[in-house]
């Protein structure tokens, strides 16, 4: 089947390059309220910011190559890591996951669109605007140099005189509003728009994780918004929230920020848990093992994550009792995470594991995320954390989780659904190159950071003393970054070139089991001609095996 078989899918945007008026195509994309187009725009936005954030990272790695380099001035370096962190969390991580969710969730649950299509489009544009506003801080003569968690009182006018911090705070407030609208939309869509028969205990697992991610967003993002409003009031109206000279509290910011900040890391990982829970079964040809336990574990993570924030604050001098509480809460997260891990392994066990690119990235996720989880356990133990926190060990740890976990999982998802989105397959050869360069480069970049941290190297330093013995670890990290860099370029190239030249995918290239694979690739704007009815968690399994359908066993 070719793209031309589905003229209705492209009624408002011909894919043929010939005779397309750019202006009208732009108009179509900028005015669209179709969840699929909005989703694609989210992902493209994230890819653009990923490249920007990546360039910032490479610049920092080059400066840290040796102890005597002065390529980048201290202030610029401090701006680089501030913007790198802000970009990757707010304008890459969240948009790419929300974008994939936007595209896939309505298709998976047999809906024609999100619950509020116009609000959905608004959410995207507001998020993009927030990103641009944050980068507009450059127009003040330089980005903010406060770190992505912007500890008060560094953000007060006394210490940050230019308007850069104001643009940064405004940008995050605006992007946060976009994120919250997206979360509202997911909740309403998932709870009210499911196909007949798809009860809540039959929804595809990715949908389930998007639901709980959305709940976390609703709880965690508004406190950040409120705290950023306080920063702006301090700076613009002379309020004193974080003005320690006038009774304000530096600790309040830390509590509010991490009350957002820790659920945030689960916001960045739960959807990925969902994606790999879709992909591993398909590429092992087995049903997801222990769906109910996986679902319960997701809920448990979402709830426990609200009570662990102060493990980022062990060094601020809380009491030992408080420390102990947060040790326990943080370690508890490892139980549901462990359940998930074992269920993925059990799903693979006894299967026919098939290493097409989505599964390859799932393998990357499984083998690496485990390590990030184990270093996380070390950081949760307050006494060990007194040594490790704010050192390069932490930098290594969270990149391990965010790249080894979130990014590998997201790449798995993109490689899995790209044929659905474009109607064409990504090049497997390029995908393998991308995977192995990323896998090796990632290891070489971030493993040495753990060592540097244990040898006493604090994070966020633009240079280090020659006698510190950190140079070799930094050089390895820089080499790793240079190995990683081309993998992202290969990825972008693969996205672009396969869109034109990829093998035609057909509706269901992976022989998968969820509803999105019943419609055409790409799907028509209305998704389904006839809303499907569902009897089990794998409606297509039932359809392909009418003699032995799943609903008999659920």
């Amino acid at each position, binding site marked *: 089947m070719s793209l031309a078989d589905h003229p209705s899918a492209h009624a408002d945007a011909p894919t043929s390059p010939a005779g397309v008026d750019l202006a009208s195509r732009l108009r179509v994309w900028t005015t669209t309220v179709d969840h699929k187009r909005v989703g694609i725009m989210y992902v493209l936005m994230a890819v653009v910011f990923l490249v920007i954030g990546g360039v910032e990272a490479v610049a920092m790695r080059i400066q840290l190559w040796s102890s005597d380099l002065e390529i980048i001035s201290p202030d610029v370096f401090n701006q680089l890591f501030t913007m790198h962190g802000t970009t990757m969390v707010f304008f890459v991580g969240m948009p790419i996951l929300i974008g994939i969710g936007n595209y896939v969730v309505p298709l998976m649950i047999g809906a024609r669109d999100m619950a509020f299509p116009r609000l959905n489009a608004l959410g995207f544009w507001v998020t993009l605007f927030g990103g641009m506003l944050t980068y507009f801080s450059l127009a003040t003569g330089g980005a903010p140099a406060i770190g992505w968690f912007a500890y008060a009182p560094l953000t007060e006018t006394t210490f940050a005189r230019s308007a850069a911090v104001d643009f940064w705070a405004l940008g995050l407030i605006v992007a946060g509003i976009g994120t919250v609208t997206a979360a509202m939309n997911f909740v309403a869509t998932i709870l009210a728009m499911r196909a007949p028969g798809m009860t809540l205990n039959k929804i595809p697992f990715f949908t389930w994780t998007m639901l709980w991610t959305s709940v976390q967003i609703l709880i965690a993002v508004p406190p950040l918004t409120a705290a950023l409003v306080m920063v702006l009031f301090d700076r613009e109206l002379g309020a004193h929230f974080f003005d320690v000279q006038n009774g304000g509290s530096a600790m309040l910011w830390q509590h509010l920020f991490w009350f957002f900040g820790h659920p945030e890391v689960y916001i960045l990982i739960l959807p990925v848990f969902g994606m790999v829970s879709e992909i591993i079964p398909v590429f092992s040809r087995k049903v997801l093992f222990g769906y109910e336990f996986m679902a319960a574990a997701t809920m448990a993570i979402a709830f426990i994550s609200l009570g662990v924030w102060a493990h980022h604050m062990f060094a601020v001098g809380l009491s030992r009792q408080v420390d102990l509480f947060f040790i326990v809460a943080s370690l508890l997260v490892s*139980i549901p995470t462990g359940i998930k891990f074992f269920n993925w*392994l059990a799903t693979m066990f006894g299967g026919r594991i098939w290493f097409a690119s989505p599964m390859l990235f799932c393998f990357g996720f499984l083998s690496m995320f485990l390590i990030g989880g184990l270093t996380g356990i070390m950081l949760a133990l307050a006494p060990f954390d007194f040594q490790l926190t704010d050192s390069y060990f932490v930098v290594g740890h969270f990149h391990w989780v965010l790249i080894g976990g979130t990014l590998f999982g997201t790449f798995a998802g993109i490689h899995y659904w790209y044929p659905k989105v474009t109607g064409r397959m990504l090049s497997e050869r390029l995908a393998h190159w991308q995977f192995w360069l990323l896998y090796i480069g990632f290891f070489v970049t971030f493993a040495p950071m753990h060592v540097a941290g244990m040898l006493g190297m604090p994070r966020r330093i633009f240079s280090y003393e020659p006698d510190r013995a950190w140079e070799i670890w930094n050089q390895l990290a820089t080499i790793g970054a240079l190995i990683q860099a081309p993998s992202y370029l290969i990825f972008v190239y693969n996205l672009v070139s396969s869109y034109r030249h990829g093998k035609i995918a057909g509706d269901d290239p992976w022989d998968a089991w969820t509803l999105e694979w019943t419609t055409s690739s790409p799907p028509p704007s209305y998704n389904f001609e006839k809303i499907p009815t569902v009897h089990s968690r794998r409606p297509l399994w039932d359809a392909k095996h009418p003699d032995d359908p799943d609903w008999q066993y659920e």
Partner: protein
Amino acid sequence: MSGVFASGSTLLAAVAEEPWHELSIFEPASPGSAAIVRLALLVLAVAALIFLVVEGILFYTIARFRHRGGASDVPPTEPPQVYGSNPIEIAWTVAPALIVFFLVLVSARTLWEVNAAPATSRNVIEPLTVTVVGRQWWWEYRYQSYDGRKLAFITANELHIPASDPKHARPTRLLLESADVVHSFWVPRLEGKVDLIPGRTNQLWLETDVPGLFLGQCAEFCGTQHAHMLLRVVVESREDFEKWLAAQALPAVDDPQQAAGREAFLSESCVNCHRVRGTSAMGNYAPDLTHLMSRQTLASGIIPLDETNLRRWIHNPHDIKPGCLMPAFGLSAEKEELIVQYLLSLK
């Protein structure tokens, strides 16, 4: 760029030569940091075990159940479908729960061992109490009391503390404050880090039997020169420490030969920020210079304190530490020289 390649080629040589252990958390020199190492080794072992088991299962599963066909071909037949198993699920819920329980117990024990007043059978000398004030981007040490004696001098960037010996424990109690933004006091071999937070006083206990120099640096991002806010802790034997205390307690030397230099120093705006006890320089914002030359380093530990560096520093501090809060005053060459010579006399 040639420097880049040169240092690349000496990668391995560098490892062999450099004193890699000087800031390692695995070279503890105090009871607190040793307790952390015990916990760390334990949890590293637990993590290694989990790692081996889980990765082992992962790779075994892949090796055994991998479909050997073209990467882009769907396997032709479906394996048996297994939907789940309650006993198995319960087993792998309970196993991590037991590990968590164990880790909570051991970390709770360690938690009460670190950053604590010494619990020892030795005679405990009344602790040396020092208020540490974090400032952008240097450390101020206000010595308060020791061994029942009141101390009343202020110094900067190099903290001197007494070592314990077999008969006496000589702990140090640091009261951590900040004059501006959040900093963090981290000397890995002596203790885990504790933040210095404006509007709050934190406490950090140090105690060690090992005399010598211990290094560290600020661990919480605090602005432009966060990277150059280095910590130097000099642990001295009882005799050396007493000598040092006595010298620091004296007012600045008043060398008549340096009268002109002193005059020059006092007539410039140096005095608005710096203090030289015994003179009219009573500034409160910059390092106390009363016994400047008793220190080994300049600019918060980044360069050795000698005549050349001092002259460079006074000429333009931003050549050495760009963005630091001390301005270049554009002094005349003679005046600069007079001030340098005066400062060199502050032993």
